[in-house]
């Protein structure tokens, strides 16, 4: 015999394994519950005529239970597949629950709406880029951080960079930009020496030639006597410069 009131009075005041109590609310964990709250009107155990909407793998079904099948728990719930079309499905719900209490009809439609909305959201999310969460092992991360610190100390990055730059300078990749370059300076010095040597050699050769010429043309020349320098020159002693003295 199915006495809903008796069942409710026992469940409500006594123990119900589906009931979850919080400070302000009572919830019903029964999978066939329509609203999820623990009320007299939405308890699937305490109502012999009851209906819900549930979804399995993206397909929504309307479940109905009537008092005639209360004795056959295996056949208790009637399962109706709802159409993929939202309006048609709502119509189906209305058709199947015609003459049922307004509360159950309304709540079924609301539940169905919510289900379709979250299914739409799920489908949209899978299309967007999903962030893959990778678990970190604390020990390993700590070890790696320590290794990095040690590697940084061992690396002496600044010194390495300086070495490399100086090598590039030596090899001459910078060309003539930096005048401080020793090699360029040395090269320049060498060039000067070479040129001066060659000049000196040339001069010597010229002198030799001249001497030779003079000797060959040894003629007696009569030269004037040295004249004493004029007094005017001596008086202009201030204007004497070092170069004049050297001469």
């Amino acid at each position, binding site marked *: 015999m199915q006495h809903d009131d008796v069942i409710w009075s026992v469940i409500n005041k006594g123990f119900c394994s589906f009931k979850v109590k919080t400070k302000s609310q009572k919830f019903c964990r029964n999978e066939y519950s329509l609203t999820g709250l623990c009320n007299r009107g939405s308890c699937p155990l305490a109502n012999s005529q009851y209906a819900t909407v549930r979804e399995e793998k993206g397909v929504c079904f309307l479940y109905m239970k009537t008092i005639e099948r209360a004795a056959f728990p295996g056949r208790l719930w009637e399962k109706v597949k709802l159409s993929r079309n939202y309006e048609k499905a709502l119509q189906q719900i209305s058709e199947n629950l015609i003459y049922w209490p307004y509360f159950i009809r309304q709540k079924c439609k609301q539940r169905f709406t919510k289900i379709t909305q979250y299914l739409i959201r799920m489908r949209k999310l899978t299309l967007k*880029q999903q962030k893959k969460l990778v678990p970190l092992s604390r020990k390993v991360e700590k070890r790696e951080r320590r*290794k990095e610190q040690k590697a940084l100390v061992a690396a002496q990055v600044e010194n390495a960079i300086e070495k490399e730059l*100086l090598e590039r300078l030596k090899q001459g990749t910078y060309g003539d*930009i930096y005048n401080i370059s020793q090699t360029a300076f040395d090269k320049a010095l060498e060039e000067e020496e070479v040129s001066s040597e060659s000049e000196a050699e040339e001069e010597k050769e010229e002198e030799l030639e001249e001497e030779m010429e003079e000797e060959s043309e040894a003629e007696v020349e009569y030269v004037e006597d040295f004249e004493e320098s004029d007094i005017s020159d001596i008086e202009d002693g201030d204007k004497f410069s070092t170069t004049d003295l050297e001469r």
Partner: protein
Amino acid sequence: MTCPPTSWSIPNFPKMATSKKKKMPVREETQDVENDSAMAVPSSAIPPPNISSIKNKMRRTQEFIKLKRQRRKEKKELQKKKKREAEALGDEAPPKKVPRTIENMRVFDETMVDPQDEEVLHDEAHDEMASYFTRDTRPKVLITSSDRPRSTTTRFLKELGQCIPNSEIYYRRGLDLKKVIPQALSKEFTDIIVINEDRRKPNGMLLCHLPDGPTAHFKISNVKLHDEIKRAPKSTEHHPEVILNNFNTRLGHTVGRMFAALFPHDPQFSGRQAVTFHNQRDFIFFRHHRYLFKNNKRVGLNELGPRFTLKLRSLQKGTFDSKFGEYEWVHKRHEMDTSRRKFFL
């Protein structure tokens, strides 16, 4: 001179004959002291008492400090002696011993590249980055981040953009990377850098060389931005020089070439900027400096721009495809992190 510690005696008393010690009331355990009652045993034969057996913490620490001081003194004397001997011998002195470092003890890697190796040269002339090195293509870099980047990451992106010439920063608006790549190809980008962010900090970098080039995934750590570096001057638009240090293995060569392909071929020496990728023990340190030659033996370095470390996580052939891509190298922690002296780059 070490005395067995007793509760009432001043420790600096010279050592007495053992027989007398026996009569003194000893409150601590002196198990390790040999008691030769009959003869005065020379002090060197008696091992000093174990410091760790002193129960009193203060006295124990004092004894330990004394012991350390003594040891240090002995060590210094030994060193001085050795130095004197070496100087005395002059040229005959035994060669200085080289201390062992992790780099010295590195496990032999058969993929270490010999610079004159023909096979390697041939490979490199025909790999994906070859077109950059033959000056057929100019680098054009696309820098982006993961979705919805935070302020630190956006600042990091901007600094990277400043550091790498000819780069453009685009914000990721929830686009799939696989869809970004054909768009970038159509706009003639040569490289894509994607900075991944976690907990408001950049923590990963994906470097993808574009016309079907390899994709390298790095872990970023220790990011220091331009604002955080003290007294850092501003960087200019000049093309920097690239310095790649210690990329010795075959894998290291590939990664090094990928880095080099980011920067334009001809550095502008008037800018005096240098970008360094220094590899040490598989950590790649990135630095951006302005240098100044003080004379031909000394350089001054002034750090600009960002500074961070990278660690290679995986190298994949072809453009980004995490599911079906062919991975050339993946870092597997449990297998590859077992030896402290084995490195891969």
